[in-house]
C-alpha cells in the first residue's frame, strides 16, 4: 500500500495541517480507500448493537400494561422515524457543503442519502400502520405525525426525482442540493405540527430536555436500537457513497487500477 500513501500525501501542502483532513475528505479516492478500512469495524459494531437492542427489546423488556406485546414494534418504528428525519438533514447538509465548498464527495453523499432516507421513512410509516391496527383499530389514521412522515417521504421522492431528471451530473447535484435545502425549511414545520394539531398519536416520547416518560427498562433497549440504527445508517451511507464514487470516477486511473487489481488477484 506504499504507492497509495505516497500519492495521497500529495495534497495542498500550503494548508495548515489541522485543515488537511477536510481537504482530503473532499477527494473521492481518499474517501473510498479510507472508508474501506472503516467499513468492517463499523458493520460489526452496527450488527452487535442492533442484535443487542433487538434481543433486549423483543425478549427481555417488560410488557406494556395497556398494549401488551404489540408495543414492541416501537423498537423498529421509533429509530426508523428518527433516522428518517435526521437523514434528511444529513442529505441537506451534504448538499450545502457541496454548494459552498464545491466538494464532489459531498454531492455523492447527498445522492446516496436520499434512497436510504426514503426507505427508512417508508419503514417508519409501515411499522406505524402495523402498530396502528391493534392500537387504534385502523391501519391508517390522518394524524399530524403520520401525515408529516408522509410529506417527508414526498420530499425525499422529489429530491430523488430531480436527481434522476438531469443527464448532467453537475446540474443534478446542484439542483437537488437546492431542493434539499428548501425542503429543510419544511422540516421544522413538520416537527411543529406535532404541537399544532396533535390528535390521535401519542405525544413525542423522547424529549431531550426532560426525563423520558417511558419506563427505564423499556427505554434503554430503545436507546440501544437508536444507536444501532445510526450505525446501520452510517454503514448504508458509506456503501452507497462508495458505489457512487466508483460510478462517477470510473474513468479515472485509480478506479481502473483498483478494478484490474481486484480482477487479477
Amino acid at each position, binding site marked *: 500500500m506504499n504507492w497509495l500513501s505516497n500519492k495521497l500525501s500529495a495534497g495542498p501542502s500550503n494548508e495548515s495541517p489541522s485543515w488537511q483532513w477536510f481537504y482530503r475528505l473532499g477527494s473521492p479516492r481518499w474517501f473510498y480507500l479510507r472508508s474501506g478500512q472503516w467499513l468492517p469495524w463499523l458493520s460489526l459494531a452496527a450488527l452487535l448493537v442492533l442484535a443487542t437492542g433487538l434481543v433486549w427489546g423483543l425478549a427481555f423488556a417488560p410488557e406494556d400494561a395497556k398494549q401488551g406485546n404489540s408495543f414492541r414494534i416501537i423498537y423498529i418504528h421509533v429509530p426508523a422515524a428518527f433516522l428518517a428525519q435526521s437523514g434528511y438533514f444529513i442529505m441537506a447538509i451534504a448538499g450545502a457543503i457541496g*454548494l459552498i465548498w464545491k466538494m464532489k464527495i459531498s454531492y455523492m453523499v447527498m445522492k446516496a442519502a436520499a434512497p436510504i432516507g426514503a426507505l427508512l421513512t417508508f419503514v417508519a410509516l409501515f411499522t406505524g400502520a402495523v402498530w396502528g391496527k391493534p392500537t387504534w383499530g385502523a391501519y391508517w389514521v390522518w394524524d399530524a405525525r403520520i401525515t408529516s412522515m408522509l*410529506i417527508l417521504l*414526498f*420530499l425525499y*421522492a*422529489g429530491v430523488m*426525482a*430531480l436527481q434522476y*431528471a*438531469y443527464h*448532467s451530473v*453537475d*446540474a443534478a447535484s*446542484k*439542483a437537488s442540493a*437546492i*431542493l434539499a*435545502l*428548501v*425542503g429543510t*425549511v*419544511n422540516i421544522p*414545520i413538520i416537527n411543529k405540527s406535532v404541537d399544532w394539531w396533535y390528535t390521535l398519536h401519542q405525544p413525542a416520547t423522547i424529549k431531550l430536555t426532560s426525563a423520558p416518560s417511558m419506563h427505564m427498562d423499556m427505554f434503554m433497549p430503545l436507546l440501544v436500537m437508536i444507536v444501532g440504527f445510526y450505525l446501520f445508517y452510517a454503514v448504508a451511507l458509506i456503501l452507497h457513497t462508495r458505489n457512487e464514487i466508483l460510478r462517477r470516477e470510473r474513468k479515472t486511473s485509480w478506479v481502473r487500477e483498483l478494478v484490474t487489481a481486484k480482477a487479477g488477484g
Partner: protein
Amino acid sequence: MSRPTARKMDSGFVAWLRRDLLLAYRRRGEVASPVVFFMMVSTLIPLGLTPEAAQLEKVAAGMIWIMALLATLLSVDGLFASDYHDGSLEQMLITPQLLPLPILGKVTAHWLTTGLPLTLVSPLLGLMLSLPSAGYLPLICSLALGTACLSLVGAVGAALTVSLRKGGLLLSLLVMPLYMPVIIFGTATVNSAVDGLNWLPPLAILGALFAASVALCPLAAAGALRVTASN
C-alpha cells in the same frame, strides 16, 4: 448617466413586472385558463360528491383551496419556460442587477395574473358550494395571502425544472409537499371563521409563511436558475 443604486435595483423589479404584465395582456387567453380551470373543477365537486347544500358547505373551504392550489400549480410551470426558450432568461441572468429582484418582479406579475383573479372569483365559487356567509371574508383574505405564497414557492420549483423537457409533472412533485403548510392554514382560516372561532391567528401564520417566502424563495429561485439555465 449613472443612476443611484437603489433606483437601479428597483428598476430590475419594476421592469420585469411591467414586461410580464404586458406579455400577459397580449396573451389574455392563456391568463384566463387557470380561472376557467378553477370554475370548471368546482362543477365536478357537486357531480362527484353530492349536490346537497348541507354536505357541500362542510367541504367548500377545503375544496376551493385545493382547486386554487392546483390552478396555481398548472400555471406556475410557464413562469420561466418561455423566457428560457426565447433566450430572455439568459439576458436576465447576465444583467448586473441582483437576480432575486427581477425574479420577484416576475413572481408578482404571476400572482397578479393568477392568484389575484382566483381570489376575486372565489366568493362566486363559495356561493356555488354554499359556503356559510361567515367564511367569505376569511376566504378572500387567506386566498390573497396564500396564493402569493404558492406563486413564490412555485417559482423555486419552476426554476429547478426550467430546462427539463417534461418539467411540468416533476414540478408538481417537487412543490406539492412544500405547499402543504399553506393549505393547512388557508383552510384553517376559513373553517375557524365558519365555526365561529377567531380566524385571525391562522391568517397571521399564513402571513408569516408569506413573509418567509418573500424573503427566501427569490434567493432559492435565483440559485436554481443559475444552475439549471446553463444546462
